[in-house]
């Protein structure tokens, strides 16, 4: 006689939860509709007509391609750096006990726990003090700093489930440390790293607050969008770009979800 059998959901709760989820999703659906609107001067609803014209216009815009290219390059390199640093940190934290362990895990979370504007302005003023000119690499430096935590969270969760006896068994059977890493540890943490990497990529691809402080004249895709939001010039093109960005970020999120589905959760907290 389990007591949690008779699960009848109260109607009010169902409605409230449904309305809440609709509140989360309807605005995003609206983006898809507006990408096809024929109206190019205002945000008129309902759209007076539907067209595919703006996709062609957007396709032929060099500034959009440039921004997209820069964003992809920044996100790739930041992800690579974050994967290396995050995995090293996670391995050290989860496999050993040492003095200052708590402080290090706090340090990893700090760039994302503090408001982005603080990370941004402190990096900017540090670049100014050190007289480092703004470039591609200053953007990467900022992005990698807050991407580490995503990889770290995913890797730590998986390391916790990786039994120490597996590693010891591998060593006992004659594998050296590198072989153990290659054949035992890596296959075990691989999917977690892939998921963490994808989330880091999505995070970097979308980042705008830190980037406004660490980028010089270059515009990543979010910076390009921000300009359009503050001073709208090309509404239809912005509509199309917004839709593409939604689609592009959904894919890694879905992939990361399926990769980490067995047991541990995607570390979505503290974006």
């Amino acid at each position, binding site marked *: 006689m389990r007591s949690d059998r008779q699960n009848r959901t109260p109607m009010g709760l169902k409605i409230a939860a449904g309305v809440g989820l609709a509140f989360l999703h309807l605005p995003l659906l609206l*983006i898809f509709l507006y990408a096809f609107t024929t109206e190019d001067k*205002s945000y008129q609803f309902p759209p007076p007509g539907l067209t595919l014209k703006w996709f062609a216009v957007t396709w032929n815009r060099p500034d959009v391609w440039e921004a997209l290219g820069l964003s992809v390059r920044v996100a790739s390199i930041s992800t690579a*750096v974050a994967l290396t640093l995050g995995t*090293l940190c996670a391995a050290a934290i989860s496999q050993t006990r040492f003095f200052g362990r708590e402080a290090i895990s706090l*340090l990893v979370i700090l760039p994302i726990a503090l408001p982005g504007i603080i990370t941004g302005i402190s990096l900017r003023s540090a670049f100014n003090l050190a007289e480092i000119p703004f470039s591609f690499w200053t953007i990467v430096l900022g992005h990698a700093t807050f991407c*580490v935590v995503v990889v770290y969270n995913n890797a730590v969760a998986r390391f916790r489930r990786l039994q120490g006896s597996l590693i010891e068994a591998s060593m006992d059977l004659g594998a050296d440390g590198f072989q153990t890493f290659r054949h035992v540890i890596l296959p075990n943490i691989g999917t977690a790293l892939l998921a963490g990497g994808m989330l880091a990529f999505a995070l970097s691809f979308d980042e705008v607050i830190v980037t406004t402080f660490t980028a010089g004249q270059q515009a990543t895709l979010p910076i390009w969008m921000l300009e359009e939001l503050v001073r709208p010039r090309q509404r239809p093109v912005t509509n199309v770009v917004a839709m593409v960005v939604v689609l592009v970020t959904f894919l890694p999120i879905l992939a990361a979800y399926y990769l980490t589905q067995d047991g541990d959760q995607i570390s979505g907290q503290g974006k």
Partner: protein
Amino acid sequence: MSVSSSASGGAILAGRGGLGGSLSDAFWRKPQLLLFLMLTPPLLWLGVIYLGSLFALLIQSFFSIDEFSGMVVREFTLKTYGELLRPSNLDIIVRTVIMAGLVTIASAVIAFPIAYFAARYARGRWKAMFYLGVMLPLWSSYLVKIYAWKLILAKEGILGWVFDKLHLTFLIDGWLALPIVGGNSLSVSPTGTFLVFVYVWLPFMILPMQAALERVPTNLLEASADLGASPGQTFRNVLLPLALPGVIAGSIFTFSLTLGDYIIPQIIGTSHLFIGMAVYAHQGTAGNIPLAAAFTVVPVVIMGIYLWLAKRAGAFNAL
């Protein structure tokens, strides 16, 4: 050191040959060496570059700006903090904190049914759907979300259209005519800013809340009902106290994120400044880095107090 194992096949094997082999042996014998090597790169990056920058920023908040030349004077003084406490700057701080508080409360109210349904009633496929239903908006582009609201709140946008079709336009007009919350249109009113803040940070409230609610044993709720409590009493006296750590954990995100944001009020809102916008304005065109730095100390201090209170309420067990 030289153990000859060739003849006897003893218990201890010879050291491995080659660079990789001896490195591997060294790591096994001295785990501290491996630990040191593993921790150096991340610590150099986060500890030196990142913490260093934060510290440099903190120091600059104790510098001041020369009123005539506009140059930063590198002498320690509390003058900048005095400037921070001017009424106009205090207004900005109070406005931001009130907004953060309201956003947090509204997020908690909207998030609760979703989190409760997902934690207690959703099973199997529905559970996955709910999880993704929160995850996708959480991770989708921040700017696109703001842009969507620009489309919604515009005068000619969908919200105006719906109210027009229902012949309820007078409701919007009446609301916009109110002082404090109103404005020329929804997209340039504090109400608009509030709505967008709630929308963008809501998923950050749902996830920790759901995690906390999942740990509340169902039979406690049933026991409460069996003992004659109404659903409302069960909610107040059993469910809420048990779920409170999750609510506080979520509120840390919504509160902190609202405190530091400068893009949402800039795009959807009035010309009244929020802390983030003040920081941005002072470091940018005004070139007053010391005052900008002092402004960034405000959310850090507020969050420090908030976290300390949250820790006392046991919120970190729910993270």
